[in-house]
């Protein structure tokens, strides 16, 4: 089924011996002119790209404290080295977080530190050659920006920050990545990542309403552009048609319906994702985020709720206030924005929505903590709520729940292997291999605890798992949305 070797899943995890060059051939398609220009980037590699790259690096060093601090502080202890799923799955030493950073750090040393200017090689300083640029392109697109390395670094060095900066530099010298930039372009031209036009969306939603009414006998609505609705729901466009995403969307609809809270989608913001984070572009992040602000103002809503999406939630929770705030025109009684899991869990706890767990009796669940949620955001009003609340929600909907190995969940969660702008077919080998640590932990609970399904709250994780599970001999249907479980268990109709 694949023209590469599928990693073995061990009982006890094994750290590979470095195999230099193991993934040197994995290069995602570069962006062409038509993907670059709508984002304000040069269409092809500019003539003076070396000078330009150093210039942009200097600019970023003056804008992001993380860069000089992280570049200066690394002691090469290697604490992060065996923490990256791409290193664990591929063995390529340039996928060790510190080695990945060093691709960037060597140029920083050469041009921005006295030691590097003076001593060169001795302190690992290198000139920005074409060869090094190629390494940058390959290996900064083999980082899912999952932040797992940051958890284990004694100085909190986050390789994601470095790979975001590297991608910004590459974009600005004309060497962007097709997958990310094409998608951002679609958000600008059509309104969402999938390039789903409004008419198609309306049709889909109408069809969905009919199907659900037929199934349940209840008129669950999926309203678009309703002025004066209480809640604006912003959700990843994959929720509108991909499996199992759409089952999650149905769950949101049922919760709103049952709680009697009016809500709406906005045709201006049919996408929660903000891929500009993956390419480290503040400007594009602002531009994408402002759509949500504009939509909220236009529709006169009181609250904003985000659907199940990992990186979108990081941007929403951690950055939205910065990028598109202040949100003082919304109802101050609720945090802005709210996660759909916070929203539903709260209603369930208050008894406004009731569930019958037995509807999910045929499943034993485990939960995959998505990187950006676990390590880049929060839910609820207490530290670690982003780990607790989704689990509470699952346990409220389903009787049988088992966590995977503690080293692979929570803040130590392993990436699905497809985050950070790598969810593209041209990187399938990397995606399959990078999923190895997660698959290993999953297989353990499947075999030892009879787990049948893994729930997730991220559009990328869901798509990635659907694709890679079969490579490891598991069913793609194992992966479910958290709100799919809620959807199965919810008691519709009168609450008494």
């Amino acid at each position, binding site marked *: 089924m694949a023209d590469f070797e599928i990693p073995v899943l061990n009982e006890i995890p094994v750290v590979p011996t470095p195999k230099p060059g193991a993934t040197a051939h994995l290069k995602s398609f570069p962006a062409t002119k038509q993907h670059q220009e709508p984002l304000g980037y040069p269409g092809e590699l500019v003539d003076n790209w070396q000078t330009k790259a150093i210039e942009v690096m200097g600019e970023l060093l003056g804008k992001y404290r993380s860069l000089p601090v*992280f570049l200066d502080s690394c002691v090469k202890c290697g604490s992060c080295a065996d923490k990256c799923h791409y290193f664990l799955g591929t063995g390529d030493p340039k996928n060790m977080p510190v080695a990945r950073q060093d691709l960037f750090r060597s140029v920083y040393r050469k041009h921005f530190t006295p030691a590097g200017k003076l001593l060169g090689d001795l302190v690992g300083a290198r000139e920005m050659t074409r060869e090094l640029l190629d390494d940058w392109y390959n290996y900064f697109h083999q980082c899912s920006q999952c932040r797992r390395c940051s958890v284990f670094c*004694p100085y909190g*060095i986050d390789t994601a920050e470095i790979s975001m900066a590297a991608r910004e530099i590459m974009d600005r010298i004309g060497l962007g990545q097709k997958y990310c930039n094409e998608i951002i372009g679609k958000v600008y031209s059509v309104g969402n990542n999938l390039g789903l036009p409004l008419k198609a969306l309306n049709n889909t939603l109408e069809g969905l309403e009919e199907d659900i009414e037929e199934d349940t006998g209840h008129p669950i609505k999926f309203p678009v552009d309703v002025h004066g609705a209480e809640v604006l729901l912003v959700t990843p466009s994959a929720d509108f048609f991909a499996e199992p995403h759409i089952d999650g969307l149905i769950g949101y609809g049922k919760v709103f319906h049952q709680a009697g809270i009016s809500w709406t989608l906005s045709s201006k913001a049919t996408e929660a994702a903000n891929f500009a984070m993956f390419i480290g572009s503040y400007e594009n992040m602002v531009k994408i985020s402002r759509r949500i602000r504009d939509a909220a103002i236009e529709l006169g809503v009181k609250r904003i709720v985000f659907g199940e999406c990992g990186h979108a939630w990081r941007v929403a929770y951690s950055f939205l206030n910065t990028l598109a705030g202040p949100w003082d025109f919304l109802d101050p009684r609720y945090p802005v924005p709210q996660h759909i899991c916070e929203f539903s869990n709260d209603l369930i706890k208050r008894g406004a929505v009731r569930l019958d767990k037995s509807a999910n009796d045929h499943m034993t669940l485990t939960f995959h903590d998505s990187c950006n949620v676990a390590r880049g955001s929060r839910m609820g009003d207490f530290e670690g709520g982003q780990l607790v609340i989704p689990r509470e929600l699952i346990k409220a909907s389903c009787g049988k729940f088992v966590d995977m190995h503690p080293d692979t969940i929570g803040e130590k969660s392993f990436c699905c292997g497809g985050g950070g702008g790598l969810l593209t077919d041209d990187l399938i080998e990397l995606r399959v291999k990078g999923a190895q640590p997660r698959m290993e932990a999953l297989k353990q609970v499947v075999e030892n605890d009879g787990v049948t399904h893994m729930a997730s709250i991220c559009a990328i994780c869901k798509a990635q798992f659907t694709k890679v599970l079969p490579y490891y001999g598991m069913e793609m249907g194992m992966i479910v949305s958290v709100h799919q479980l809620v959807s199965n268990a919810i008691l519709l109709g009168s609450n008494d």
Partner: protein
Amino acid sequence: MSILFAVLFYAATIVLVAGLGLKVAQYVRVPAPLKIPTTPAPLTQGGAAFRVAREVVIFESLFKSNKWLWAMAVMFHFGLVLVLIRHVRYFIEPVPMVITLMQPFGIYGGLLMIIGLFMLLGRRLVLPRIRYITGPSDLLMLVLLIGIGCSGALMVNFVHTDIIGVKAFFLGLMTFNWQKLPADPLLYVHLALVAALMLVFPFSKLLHVPGIFFSPTRNQVDDARERRHLAPWAAKYEANKTMP
């Protein structure tokens, strides 16, 4: 020789203080435009300060990562702290009671530090993935520290030096009332290596010392929804719509 060392230590002190000062000034000046604490993160300023303190004092993240490496790092760093405390007596007169009481611990600290350093060096040479990320400067740094540790330990335990003279020399340097440095080759080696360490400090990975305090993933408070966080350049961008 005394003059040479006097000049060397003045120069090393100036480079160390000015170099670190410039670095810290850079870290202070450059804003962190986005909220990027590695979560779960503390919700209060005090909590975030406590998190940084845990990193500084007990190497919390390293402990999460690798108990062996953590143990080696603790041996080296704690040993070094004890040694430094012991050394305070060469720079002040009269010597405070605590420092006098700490003297024997300083000697054990020295041994601990040297053992730790050798283990760290061994690890670098033996583990293939750590070898891969090790550059010449990483080895030199360990060798330098081992040199300082061993020359010091030799003077304490075997080839005693005229410690009263050494103290007079340093007190003299500090009060600009210069004294002779005892003529002792081992002492020269020890002091030259220490001066070298001070000179490379602001230009090397030793910047992890100030760096840890400025690391946004560790020192930021998780309050993104409650408080709007806006860097000065980002505020300008918001006002003018062009990137400064």
